[in-house]
C-alpha cells in the first residue's frame, strides 16, 4: 500500500479537499481522504451530486456546521468564491465557535451595535483578581472532586459489603480451591459524577457578575466530568467548547468571541424556552444538576420564564439558583417571577461573590 502511486490529474482535487477541510477546522483524516476517493470511484461519478453526497457521507460534517462545509465544497469543486466568512486557517485553535448554536435564537429586539467590541473591552477592563477570589477558586478545584453531586451508575465494583454476588470472582476463588467457596465475594454499584449544566445570565442587570460567573464556569469545567455551559441574554449561546481550554485567558477570550449579546436586555424566559426547545440541549438538562447564575429580573411578562423554569425543574435532578440579590440570608424573592421560581427550584442561594458561589456549589449535593 505504501509505494508511491501516480495520482491521475483528475483525482487531485479529491485529494486536496481534506487538507482544505483540515485548515478550516474540520477533522479530516488521511484514511477519510482515501475513502473519499474510493467512494467517488464507486459512484461513477455520474453527476456533481454524487461527489457532494460522497463528501458528506465520508467526512460527515455535523449538521450545525453544514453551511461552512457547503461553502468549502463549492469553493473547492465548483470554483465559487467563499461568500460566507469562513473561519480562517487556524489549525492551532482547539475550539470552533458554535455557529449553529449562536443562531438558534433570533433576538426579537435589536442588539446594540458594537456590543461585541465593548464586551471584549469591558471583559478585559474589569478587575477581578482579588486575592479572595483566587483563593476561593483554588479551594473549589481542590474540593470539587469529592463534593460535586454523584449518581449511582449501572456499573458494579467489588466491595467489602454489597448486595450482589460477584460471580466472576466467586468462580475464580472456587477454581483456586478445587470448587470450594469459603466466602461469597460481593459487589455494589459504582457512582459517577452527575452531569452539570451551567446557565449564565449575561444581561445588563448581571453586568458586574458576568466575569465572575464565567471564571467560575471555567473552573467547574476543569474539574467536572461532564459539564455544559450556556449564556442567556437576548440570545442563547453555547460556550462549552471555548471554556474547555485549560488556559484561562484563552478560554475567556474564546467565550467572549462567541457570545455576541453581552450586557444586553433581559429575555431570560425566551432564552430558556429556546434552550428547552432544542431536544439536544434539553437532553443536557436531563437528570443533571443545573446551576443558574441569574438575578431572575425579567423585562416584561413573567409567565414565559416561570413556565420555562417549571419545565427545566422537571427535567433536572436539582436546580441551584444563585442570585446576587440573595446574599442576605433573610432574602425573600421580590418579583413575581422569582416568587414562583422559588417554589420550583431546589434552592435559591447567594451569587453575590465568588466565595459564596463556590460554597453553594460545593454544598449542592448535601441532602436538603
Amino acid at each position, binding site marked *: 500500500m505504501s509505494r508511491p502511486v501516480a495520482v491521475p490529474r483528475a483525482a487531485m482535487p479529491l485529494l486536496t479537499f481534506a487538507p482544505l477541510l483540515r485548515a478550516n477546522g474540520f*477533522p479530516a*483524516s488521511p*484514511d*477519510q481522504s*482515501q*475513502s473519499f476517493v*474510493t*467512494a467517488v470511484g*464507486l*459512484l*461513477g461519478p455520474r453527476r456533481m*451530486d*454524487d461527489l457532494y*453526497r*460522497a463528501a*458528506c*457521507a*465520508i*467526512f*460527515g460534517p*455535523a*449538521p450545525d456546521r*453544514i453551511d461552512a462545509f457547503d461553502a468549502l465544497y463549492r469553493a473547492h469543486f465548483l470554483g465559487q468564491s467563499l461568500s460566507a466568512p469562513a473561519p480562517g486557517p487556524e489549525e492551532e485553535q482547539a475550539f470552533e465557535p458554535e455557529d449553529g448554536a449562536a443562531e438558534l435564537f433570533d433576538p426579537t429586539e435589536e442588539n446594540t451595535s458594537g456590543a461585541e467590541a465593548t464586551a471584549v473591552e469591558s471583559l478585559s477592563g474589569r478587575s477581578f483578581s482579588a486575592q479572595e477570589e483566587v483563593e476561593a477558586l483554588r479551594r473549589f478545584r481542590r474540593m470539587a472532586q469529592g463534593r460535586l453531586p454523584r449518581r449511582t*451508575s*449501572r*456499573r458494579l465494583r467489588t466491595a467489602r459489603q454489597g448486595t450482589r454476588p460477584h*460471580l*466472576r470472582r*466467586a*468462580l475464580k476463588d*472456587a*477454581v483456586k480451591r478445587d*470448587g470450594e*467457596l469459603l466466602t461469597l465475594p460481593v459487589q455494589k454499584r*459504582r457512582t*459517577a459524577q452527575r452531569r452539570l449544566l451551567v446557565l449564565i445570565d449575561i444581561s445588563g442587570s448581571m453586568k458586574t457578575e458576568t466575569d465572575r460567573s464565567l471564571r467560575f464556569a471555567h473552573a467547574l469545567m476543569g474539574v467536572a466530568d461532564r459539564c455544559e455551559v450556556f449564556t442567556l441574554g437576548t440570545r442563547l449561546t453555547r460556550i462549552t467548547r471555548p471554556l474547555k481550554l485549560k488556559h484561562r485567558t484563552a478560554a475567556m477570550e474564546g467565550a467572549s468571541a462567541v457570545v455576541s449579546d453581552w450586557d444586553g436586555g433581559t429575555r431570560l424566559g425566551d432564552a430558556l*424556552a*429556546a434552550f*428547552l*426547545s432544542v*431536544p*439536544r440541549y*434539553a*437532553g*443536557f438538562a*436531563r437528570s443533571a444538576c443545573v446551576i443558574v447564575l441569574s438575578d431572575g429580573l425579567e423585562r416584561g411578562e413573567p409567565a414565559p420564564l416561570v*413556565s420555562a423554569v417549571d*419545565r427545566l425543574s422537571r427535567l433536572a435532578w436539582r436546580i441551584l439558583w444563585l442570585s446576587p440579590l440573595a446574599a442576605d440570608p433573610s432574602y425573600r424573592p421580590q418579583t413575581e417571577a422569582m416568587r414562583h421560581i422559588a417554589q420550583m427550584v431546589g434552592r435559591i442561594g447567594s451569587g453575590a461573590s465568588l466565595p459564596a458561589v463556590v460554597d453553594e456549589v460545593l454544598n449542592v449535593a448535601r441532602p436538603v
Partner: protein
Amino acid sequence: MAVTPVISGIAGPADLAEALRDAQYLAGEDLSTAAYLALALGKPLLLEGAPGVGKTEGAKAIASILGRQLVRLQCYEGIDASAALYEWNYPRQMLAIRQAGNEYVNIYADDFLVARPMLEALRHPSDTVLLIDEIDRADHEFEAFLLEFLSDFSISIPETGTVRAEVQPVVILTSNRTRELHEALRRRCVYHYIGYPDAAREATIVMMRASTVTRETAAKVVRAVSALREEPLAKAPGVAETVEWAEAATLLNTQGSTWPLAFRRAIGVSLKAQADVTVLADRLDALIDDAVA
C-alpha cells in the same frame, strides 16, 4: 481497504433505494448513497437525527434487504462489556466444577459462554447486521472501547483467545445527538444525518406504513404535522408520530368521528407532552382546521 462494489446484487445507490422501497422504507438519495458507500467500503454506517425520523427503521430495512438477521444492542449509560460482548455463565461453570469431581472439566468451553450482541455479530458476520442503537446514551468509555471493535472487528476473551470476524460485518450505529460523538468514532464511519422528510415524501411514508390511511388523510396529517413542527414544542412530532396520528384518526373516523374532530381527538398520539398541549391549547383547533381544509 476491501471494496465490494456489488453487495447482494446491489450495484449502486439507486438499486439500494429501490430495494429499500420494496422493504417499505423510503430512503432519500443522500441516505441511499451513504448506506451504499458504507456497505461497499465495509465501514460502519452512522445515522444521526432527531428521535422518530426512522434511524432504527432504516437499519431494520437494510438488514431485511440483505436477508440478514438484525442483532440489536441498545446502549444506556453505564453499559459495559458484559452487556455488549460476552459473559461467562458462572452458575453453570460452578455446577460443572462440582459435578466433575476428580475428572477434568474445561469450564471455558463455548457451552459456558453467553454471547452478547457484539460477539454474536462477530461469530456470524455474514448472517447478521449489528445495530448499535442510541450510542449517544452510552458513556465515553464505551465509545472508546467501541473504536477498537470497529477498526479490527475482533474481540479478545482472556480465557480462550481472540474471536475475529471472517468477513467484515455490517454495522449500523444510530445517535439522537444528545451529545457530540467523539471525532475518532465519526472518522471511522460513513455518516448521514436524517432530517425531517419533505411533505410529499412524508405523505408517501404514511401511505406505505399505514395501509388503512387514504391518500387524502395522509396529505392532511402531513400538513398538520409540519405546522406543528413550526411551533416551539418540547418534542416536535417525528415521522413515527405522523404515521400513528394518521392511523389513529382513520380509526376514529371509521367509528363515526367527523374529519377535523377525528384529528383533534387523536392528538395524543402526536403530541406527547402536557406542556405542548397547553402551549397550543387555543391555537390547536385553528391549526388543524387549516391543515384539513
